[in-house]
């Protein structure tokens, strides 16, 4: 396993800057999640580390050595593609054996057989080994794609939304399984997702990308509690952080235009009056949709709340985050 260092890496496709001066150090054994909307440069970043794209400028180093001159094969990384990319002319077994049969590894037949059995067991695809790769469901294909990465023991795993096609239960199982495999192997893993639960539960570090730039890199907790900008604050949190004019409540620092309020940072029972517009019972919790001076606001309350649409409640912010109009964070007292 190895440390990966990106040093002001940039990549453009025509006029579009896909990745813009990204510097990031992925420590050995870390589980790094890249967050950002479509087009933020997550996949391009993975592809540059894998060697499928060449950066226009900057450097990529794996285990202390620049790999820019290396072919993807020589970099010894494994990648799970978003589109699975299983070899359609091969069976599941042959797909899993493919990396081990490569001229770089040339594993023995017994070794290949043993690794396939291990991986198939972990991913619950043992009964599908002799199926053609095209005769699988989306979820099975995705597990085979993960399996194809796991059979090798590469320096680095790259995964591009590997759990996106699984149903909720399987996804929860796989999340735990992936995390377990990663910590058992001590593997370094770079992971792209939209799913905040995946980010929060699996990541040791989260990198947030915006229009090709890395806007914040830190532990999931740090990203959640101490976002550098409104953009970062909106990437994590379900329901999303509420954005209100800073002047709605007293105590805003100078220069603050917007106030960011996480749903759990709204104290009910004191403060300003808000009208309940909708109550969503989710079973374990209840979401209250409020209107405060015409501004929509979502907060959480206990599962058996007596509140109903049309009621009025008093709300008060607790530990709000303040931002300038451009979205940069303004730290209170700083």
């Amino acid at each position, binding site marked *: 396993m190895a440390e990966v260092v990106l040093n002001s890496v940039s990549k453009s496709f025509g006029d579009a800057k896909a990745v813009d001066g990204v510097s990031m150090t992925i420590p050995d054994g870390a589980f790094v999640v890249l967050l950002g909307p479509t087009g933020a440069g997550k996949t391009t970043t993975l592809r540059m580390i894998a060697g499928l794209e060449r950066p226009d400028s900057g450097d990529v180093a794996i285990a202390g050595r620049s790999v820019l001159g290396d072919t*993807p094969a020589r970099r010894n990384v494994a990648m799970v593609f978003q589109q*699975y*990319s299983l070899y*359609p002319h091969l069976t599941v077994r042959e797909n899993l054996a493919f*990396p081990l049969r*490569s001229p770089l590894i040339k594993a023995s037949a017994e070794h290949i057989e043993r690794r396939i059995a291990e991986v198939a067991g972990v991913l619950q695809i043992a009964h599908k080994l002799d199926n053609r790769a095209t005769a699988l469901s989306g979820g099975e294909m995705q597990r085979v794609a993960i399996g194809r990465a796991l059979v090798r023991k590469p320096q680095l795993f790259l995964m591009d939304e590997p759990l996106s096609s699984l149903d909720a239960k399987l996804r929860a199982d796989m999340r735990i399984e992936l995390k377990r495999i990663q910590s058992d192997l001590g593997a370094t893993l770079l992971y792209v997702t939209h799913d905040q639960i995946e980010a929060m539960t699996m990541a040791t570090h989260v990198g947030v990308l915006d229009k090709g730039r890395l806007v914040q890199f830190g532990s999931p907790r740090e990203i959640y509690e101490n976002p550098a900008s409104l953009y970062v604050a909106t990437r994590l949190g379900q329901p999303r952080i509420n954005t209100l004019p800073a002047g709605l409540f007293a105590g805003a620092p100078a220069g603050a235009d917007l106030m960011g309020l996480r749903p759990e940072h709204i104290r009910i029972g004191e403060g300003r009056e808000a009208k309940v517009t909708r109550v969503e019972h989710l079973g374990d919790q209840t979401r209250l949709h409020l209107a405060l001076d015409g501004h929509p606001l979502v907060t959480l309350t206990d599962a058996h709340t007596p509140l109903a649409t049309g009621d009025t409640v008093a709300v008060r912010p607790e530990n709000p985050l303040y931002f300038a109009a451009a979205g940069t964070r303004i730290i209170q007292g700083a």
Partner: protein
Amino acid sequence: MSGYSITEPTLAQKWIAGVLVVGYALLTILPLIWIIATGFKSPSDAIAYPPKVVFEPTLEGYVNLFTTRTRMSPEALEEIGPPETWYDRIVRQYDMVISGPSRYGERFLNSVVIGFGSTFLSVFLGTLAAYAFSRFKVPLKDDLMFFILSTRMMPPIAVAIPIFLMFRQLGLSDTHLGMILLYTAVNLSLSVWLLKGFIDEIPVEYEEAALIDGYTRFQAFYKVVLPQATTGIASTAIFCLIFAWNEYAFAVLLTSGTAQTAPPFIPTIIGVGKDWPAVAAGATLFLVPVMVFTILLRKHLLRGITFGAVRK
């Protein structure tokens, strides 16, 4: 409840469609049936007017196709004794004896060597070129592709004289190698264009996965792209073979002896006594390899193996 009713074709419509399809099929296959039938007619039946649809089949045409015959005086025939084999008997009706094999076998073999040789070469080179055009940044790619296509915009025979002179200088006239190279050159544009279309359809993600899985670019091409391109390779091979197999003009111009293919040879049979059944027999047998080749590759044409493995 559906808002639209689905109209079933009426019985009359089905009949009209059926008659049209069967009629068209008969119309296109009629010349073929006629050629095959003529091969089994006697020379007099073959030129009978009105044409005979019902006739007594004979292998005379095939015997004449494969043999050369000499007419002999009744005394000389007496000396040889009665005919011993069925083919001897057939020629003896005309006071003739078989004096040796004809050149049809050789010419047929030439066609096989040149046809399949040039097909293999066209498809092999075409696949490599098509892959490069499909996957790599080739400077002036569009112009090059257009140039390759433009070589087919005039009839190849328009450059017959330069090619004739060139072949004479290079010592390629009337050689197998010369004909294979010529047919490959003509077919290559078709093969590059067809195969590029097929390779473009194979998602590049498969090769990327193979590159990461530890394979070189060429190994990825060989192990991942090629197996998925079989449909395209098979259909391209069929087109190339049909062209090389049926080509007449260059074969007449550039071959006369050693490398002569069957198409220029078959008409020369007519010269020997208006032997239409032998010509028809030669043409019928000439059809067989292309038909067999097409039938063998048919399953590759029908199988879409790439379906469904990449999420779009």
